[in-house]
């Protein structure tokens, strides 16, 4: 009996770094509990009568102002809706939509130019080498630095939230569409760059290797082989990020560009909760349309 236990023990010790995962899992749990305790949410306070009154008042305020005294009627709602739509809603929706398109195109086109230097299988002394042959250390360093630099650029670009980029750009460029577009473009540049580089790194190396054997430069291999092979996946990511761009574009307006977010903030400032809710819902509708278009396009691309 004890011999078996010894055997089991020795097997257990030979186990690979499962300890790493367990340690981390425990660590995360501890961190989580600490976070909850630190924030110390006053749960009991939430159900104070004052808060309930607040909530009731809010629910009351959502109802459109002009229609409050009249009996409920669909035409009344429709008139209220069309009034806001024609005055502010339509233009704002268009602006939001357009900003997202320009931003993602900027992000995508710029990212594509940086993808090759960021892919470890292209940006190396001997691209597409089989794993067994290690290049000489002397020639290795500059390429490794290039990859780290470009990837670092991607990380910095995406580490800062779009909202903060937009905030900074508004202060530097003044209000208008550009701050939001640049903010979205920079952030998504980082993300698309990283995803694009991953796609290139996971490419089957046989064709590029053959082309390299024929003497093509890295850029030529990129144009002839890598680009067509990765284009489908890149397009999928492109449309996926466009969905997020629409979401972000709806809120970036809050900083000063005339879009849905802008009007939402304005309405809230004036306590026009009914309009505020309408703009929020318009934003949701725009997001849904974008999701739909993106999903359909991605299905086409996948099927091809």
């Amino acid at each position, binding site marked *: 009996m004890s011999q*078996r*236990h010894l*055997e*089991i023990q020795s*097997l*257990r010790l*030979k186990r690979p770094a499962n300890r790493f995962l367990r340690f981390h899992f425990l660590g995360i749990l501890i961190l989580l509990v600490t976070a909850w305790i630190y924030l110390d949410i006053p749960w009991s306070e939430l159900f104070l009568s004052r808060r309930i009154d607040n909530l009731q008042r809010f629910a009351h305020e959502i109802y459109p102002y002009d229609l409050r005294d009249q009996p409920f009627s669909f035409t009344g709602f429709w008139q209220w809706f069309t009034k806001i739509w024609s005055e502010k809603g339509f233009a704002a929706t268009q602006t939001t939509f357009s900003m997202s398109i320009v931003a993602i195109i900027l992000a995508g086109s710029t990212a594509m130019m940086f993808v090759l230097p960021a892919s470890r299988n292209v940006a190396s002394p001997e691209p597409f080498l089989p794993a067994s042959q290690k290049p000489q250390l002397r020639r290795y360093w500059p390429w490794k630095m290039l990859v780290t630099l470009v990837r670092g650029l991607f990380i910095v670009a995406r580490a800062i939230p779009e909202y903060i980029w937009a905030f900074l750009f508004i202060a530097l460029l003044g209000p208008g569409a550009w701050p939001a577009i640049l903010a979205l473009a920079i952030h998504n540049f980082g993300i698309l760059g990283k995803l694009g580089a991953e796609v290139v790194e996971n490419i089957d190396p046989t064709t590029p290797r053959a082309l390299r054997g024929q003497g093509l430069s890295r850029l030529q291999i990129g144009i002839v082989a890598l680009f067509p092979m990765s284009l489908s996946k890149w397009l999928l990511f492109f449309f996926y990020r466009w969905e997020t761009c629409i979401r972000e574009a709806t809120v970036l307006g809050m900083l000063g560009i005339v879009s849905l977010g802008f009007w939402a903030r304005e309405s809230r400032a004036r306590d026009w909760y009914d309009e505020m809710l309408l703009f929020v819902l318009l934003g949701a509708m725009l997001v849904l349309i974008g999701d739909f278009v993106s999903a359909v396009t991605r299905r086409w691309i996948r099927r091809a």
Partner: protein
Amino acid sequence: MTSHEFELENVTVRFPSVTALDSISLTIGTGEQIALVGPSGSGKTTLLRLFNGTVRPSSGCVRVRQVDTRELSSVQLRKLRSQIGFVHQDLSLVPNLNVLQNVLSGRMGRESFAQSLRMILLPISSETANVHQLLKRVGIEDKLFTRTDKLSGGQQQRVAIARALYQQPEAILADEPVSSVDPARANDTIGLLTKICRNDNLTMCVSLHNLDLARKFFPRLIGLREGAIVFDRQTSELNDDEFHRLYQLTEEEMLPDRVES
């Protein structure tokens, strides 16, 4: 008289596109070891799945230990299934769990959810020792803590067998357990399986492609073809002619040039 473990009475199983089994009747006694042979598509898998209640007969009666499977409530069905070990063709193991956890999952039919959770996450030493003992019987005890997807196909097969054995079942059903393994290992595995079942007096029903293997290890063979039983008798009484008829291609199945010649 030996009690009947499995009974099929005029069972037909019809799927939307095909009739898998057509008016099958057979009886398997407790402790018997039989092999199902036949070409692919003959209905071997469907037959096996009738026994643990995974497939319902379109007509006819399936009885396990004298109880009609259709009359079982869901709780009773679960209990029945927990007493029958099934080794699937594609093994159906959890790839990212280790061997110990996969084998332990065999007893889940008998345990409550909370017990199972505890068992998987924090197995106690006696359970681990039991599994170790079992893995020794199938020959892979040193892989106790290895992740299942890191094992070779043959080793994973043994894990699947160990999981079925850990259930401490009264019967073992195996669907093509050695189809993707080389002949020498297949021989070992089937030999091992039959030895264990004979030792523990388990009823065993295995479907196999390889006729020689079937003839070597099983005292009783049942031949299936296109959903009907072609023969059902003791191995010693069987002759080669019947085997060949089983696997002969029909006119339709043959390639065009062969038919013309």
